[in-house]
């Protein structure tokens, strides 16, 4: 039930983000979801793509530092308080969220939250016990 995300180190200077998207585009890699965390000097670009291995190899060849991380994709109930209900479950179970970002699933029109947890397996088990919908990697890569 895990999703593989790739993270790329990007210096805070013009054209780096464009360079990443250009080389991925040239290899036919499609970006499904992304988030950019930044500081004054550098940023970390996190991507979920349709072909993780090809994307990683391509970026490495172009001199980027790339790593793979396991994240969890949770479907958010489409109602006010939907996100709060997920966070509440995590909070009660003392599951720490390292970071999260959201995107909208094209087919169902639902919001999907990507979570990065310290302990992925525990988090998945807890969320499933509470009836949350966890989307498998294939669903996300192929959205």
């Amino acid at each position: 039930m895990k999703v593989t995300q790739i993270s790329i180190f990007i210096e805070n200077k013009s054209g780096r983000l464009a360079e990443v998207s250009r080389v991925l585009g040239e290899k036919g890699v499609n970006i499904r979801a992304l988030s950019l965390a930044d500081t004054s000097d550098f940023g970390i670009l996190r991507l979920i793509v349709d072909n993780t291995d090809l994307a990683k190899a391509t970026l490495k060849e172009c001199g980027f530092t790339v790593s793979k991380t396991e994240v969890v994709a949770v479907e958010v109930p489409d109602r006010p308080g939907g996100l709060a209900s997920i966070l509440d479950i995590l909070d009660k179970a003392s599951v720490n969220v390292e970071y999260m970002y959201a995107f909208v699933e094209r087919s169902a029109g639902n919001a999907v939250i990507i979570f990065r947890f310290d302990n992925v397996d525990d988090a998945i088990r807890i969320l499933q016990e509470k009836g949350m919908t966890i989307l498998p990697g294939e669903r996300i890569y192929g959205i």
Partner: protein
Amino acid sequence: MIWNDDFETLPREAIESLQLRRLQQTLERVYATVPFYRKRFEKAGVKPNQVKSLADLRRLPFTLKQDMRDNYPYGLFAVPLDQIVRIHASSGTTGNPTVVGYTRRDLDNWTEMMARSFAAAGAHRGDVIHNAYGYGLFTGGLGAHYGAEKIGASVIPMSGGNTKKQLMIMQDFGSTVLTCTPSYCLYLAEVAAEEGIDIHSLKLEIGILGAEPWSEKMRDEIQEKVGIKAIDIYGLSEILGPGVGIECIEAQAGLHIWEDHFIPEIIDPETEAVLPLGEQGELVITTITKEGIPMIRYRTRDITRIIAEPCVCGRTHRRLERMSGRSDDMLIIRGVNVFPSQIESVLMNIDGVEPHYLLIVDREENLDTLEVQVEVNERTFSDEIKVLQQMSRTIQEAIKEMLGISCRVRLVEPKTITRSEGKARRVIDNRPK
């Protein structure tokens, strides 16, 4: 293996009496033939025949790189040009180049010292020596070349640059010994990895690395990444070229300086006083066999100390501790003396951090600032901002602890700090002069 048993294992008293005799001869000769030295000695009120012991050496004036520039090109030569058979020069990026001339006997001595050095590093007949020091006006290439031939090894005169071809030749020709700068050695390993060449599968066994200061941590990294014994060699063109001193493979701890040809002293670079044996300071060398351009108390600007304890290899010539920096590379930041090598050793002590760094010194509102750029690699990268920020802080704190100055650490993308094919450029000083 000891190349020249007779000289390399001379008892201390014999070395010192030989040094005194050769020193006295050298002083008489330069006083008679080099007007520069005659004037300097007269100004200092000392005549060659007043030097009656090695301790009297400190009565003589120092010779500086600037003196060589002022006497450009041949002013310090002690023989007529028709006895000079080779001329080398330094690059001279900040003024006139410094020019050195060698007589036939100087070249023989140099070749002998390089042969001793190769033997001390564990090289011998049957080795394929891949010489990636630059050939040309720079002394590195030719200096190493003749020594390598002397011991009967097969020399590949590669010179510097063209890294992919270097790797191809290493693979195809079966190079066993590599001579180059330590930073270029690491660069070769990096390019090999990029090219998909397993550098450990090469026949390389020994690297004889020098021409720039490097740290013990960098040695560990080279030995692990390249799979060789990394041996530190010391030299400078003003004194000889490569082969002034070398580590023995047995100890890899301190560089034996060939004391039948040179007299080393350690001085305080500020007060110019000779320091007690074993203390760290600037290395000063007097040549006692050179004919073409003898050097009296030449200030090398290299920071080291003399190790007088006997060495396991059996050589009796004293050792110089690995050069820890240069007194003229020294940066003064907010009044604190900083050697780039100190920052290098801080970085190398942090797990996963690469020895590729760049120091940018600037001045903001009359206050010196130091930025340390460090490359992020796969081992240090994390997808969590806080982990990277923690690494920056760790580096910052370690530098603060060692040097007492605050700096800004900037993490940069891999391979964005320029790799040099010769001496690495570690500092950009943007402060107004």
